[in-house]
């Protein structure tokens, strides 16, 4: 295809059947370099193509067009063009050039960040992921970009929707690190601390040859969220954590380990002193807000302990016992804990008395039964998945070589015996 007009004509002619589109892909691949050289003049030709019918050709043109820097005045136009393409394109056609599709989407992310309007990219990237994925279990390189935009635009619920997919296939480790790290921030924002812990755990326990900065930052947040959610932190690594992580991670996170150690003493005034004296370092890591939640959580833990001893207690006495500044602050904490389901209590605002109640959950409501049932199904699906993975690994020559075992050879008369032993 020597001219752009010729390329447009080819795209219009060869976008009908699957065979034609495959043939077109071959022709466009050969013209990639010349399209890039003409990137500045491609824009008007996009109007002659339909992003839905001519998705593959449109993709090649759009990718070449966006490969060169775009001035800020045109950035809005390019963003709108890209979003329209993502929403309209045919998945079957873009699967023929997935790398180009990913490049176009990543440039969209960069442009909306540059324009400081990350929310504009959220819906489009989610659509792009769904069109790119062969199944919801596949982590694409667009996953971390989408989650990043959700964090920046505070579209936490939209991000959570994707985070609820179970991921079993990963191409690039860095995608997993970033997806899990940014995903944990969404969960923290929604106070889904247990899920945040799982995502952060995935980062620092992932296999790695060299210590990764993302793992370091994930571990810092893991310590903080662990204190907030569980009131405790264990520094022991799971045995499947890579040795480079086990040897070096704590060297980069000592401040946070010291915070956890201070927390375990249970003295809020000492914890507050420690936090204030290291405020600058926590600020530098953008973790000071979480650290303040850690301090607040100590008050919550102490209030929870009171519920095990007292039936009623005044707000002032709660404040005194838990070392809060005033009865009003105690009331704020108690109200929030009631709202979050962390304690069961009522407050009599006439006399400032708090009455602690028993947990009224009897685990026999329809909602609870549905929750338990859905959890059981999920565990069963996971069990089937793990069995399949285990079967697959048991036959993998590399794995067998690593554990130093050889497959046992069976003599003919042993085969029947083996069958009945399983």
């Amino acid at each position, binding site marked *: 295809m020597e001219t752009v007009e010729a390329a447009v004509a080819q795209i219009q002619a060869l976008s009908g059947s699957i065979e034609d589109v495959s043939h077109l892909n071959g022709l466009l691949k050969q013209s990639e370099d010349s399209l890039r050289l003409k990137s500045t003049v491609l824009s008007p030709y996009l109007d002659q193509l339909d992003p839905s019918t001519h998705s593959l050709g449109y993709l090649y043109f759009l990718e070449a067009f966006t490969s060169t820097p775009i001035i800020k005045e045109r950035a809005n136009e390019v963003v709108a063009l890209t979003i329209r393409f993502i929403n309209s394109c045919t998945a079957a056609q873009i699967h023929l050039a997935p790398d180009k599709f990913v490049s176009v989407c990543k440039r969209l992310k960069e442009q909306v960040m540059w324009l400081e309007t990350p929310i504009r990219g959220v819906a489009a990237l989610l659509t792009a992921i769904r069109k790119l994925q062969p199944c919801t279990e596949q982590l694409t390189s667009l996953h971390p970009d989408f989650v990043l935009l959700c964090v920046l635009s505070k579209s936490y619920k939209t991000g959570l929707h994707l985070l609820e997919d179970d991921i079993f296939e990963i191409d690039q480790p860095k995608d997993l690190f970033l997806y899990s790290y940014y995903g944990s921030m969404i969960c923290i924002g929604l106070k889904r601390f247990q899920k945040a812990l799982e995502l952060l755990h995935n980062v620092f326990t992932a296999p790695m040859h060299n210590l990764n900065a993302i793992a370091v930052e994930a571990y810092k947040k893991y310590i903080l969220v662990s204190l907030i959610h569980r009131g405790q932190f264990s520094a022991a690594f799971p045995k499947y954590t890579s040795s480079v992580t086990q040897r070096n991670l704590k060297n980069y996170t000592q401040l946070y380990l010291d915070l956890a150690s201070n927390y375990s003493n249970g003295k809020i005034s000492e914890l507050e002193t420690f936090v204030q004296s290291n405020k600058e370092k926590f600020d530098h890591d953008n*973790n000071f*807000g979480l650290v303040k939640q850690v301090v607040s959580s100590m008050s919550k833990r102490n209030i929870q302990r009171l519920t095990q*001893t007292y039936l009623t207690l005044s707000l*002032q006495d709660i404040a005194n016992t838990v070392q809060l500044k005033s009865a009003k602050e105690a009331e704020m904490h108690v109200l929030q804990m009631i709202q979050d389901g962390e304690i069961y209590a009522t407050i009599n605002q006439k006399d400032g008395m708090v*009455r602690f109640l028993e947990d009224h959950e009897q685990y026999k409501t329809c909602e609870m039964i549905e929750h338990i049932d859905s959890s059981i199904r999920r565990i069963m699906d996971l069990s089937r998945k793990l069995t399949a993975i285990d079967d697959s690994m048991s036959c993998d020559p590399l794995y067998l070589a690593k*554990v130093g075992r050889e497959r046992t050879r069976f003599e003919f008369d042993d085969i029947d015996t083996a069958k009945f*032993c399983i």
Partner: protein
Amino acid sequence: MKQPQGDFPLDMEKHGSMSAMNLDDSEPLDPFGNGLMHSNNHKLVDSDFFNSFEDDFDDFDIKFSLRSWPPPSSSSFTLGLRHEI
């Protein structure tokens, strides 16, 4: 002694835990692999990843709409104990 095939997965688990995930120690390091090797051992891989977020997780300023109540005097409180001492 020949081992029946049915025991094979169990044995794998037993020996698998002895040689756990020491990928870094037993496999040769790839200096041009996913994790680039740096001459400065303190430099972390992917240290330029985007992490410039607003510190948005400070919810200490949550305001509650409180009806006014008279604060009790410091000497008056009712102690209700859950368990008899």
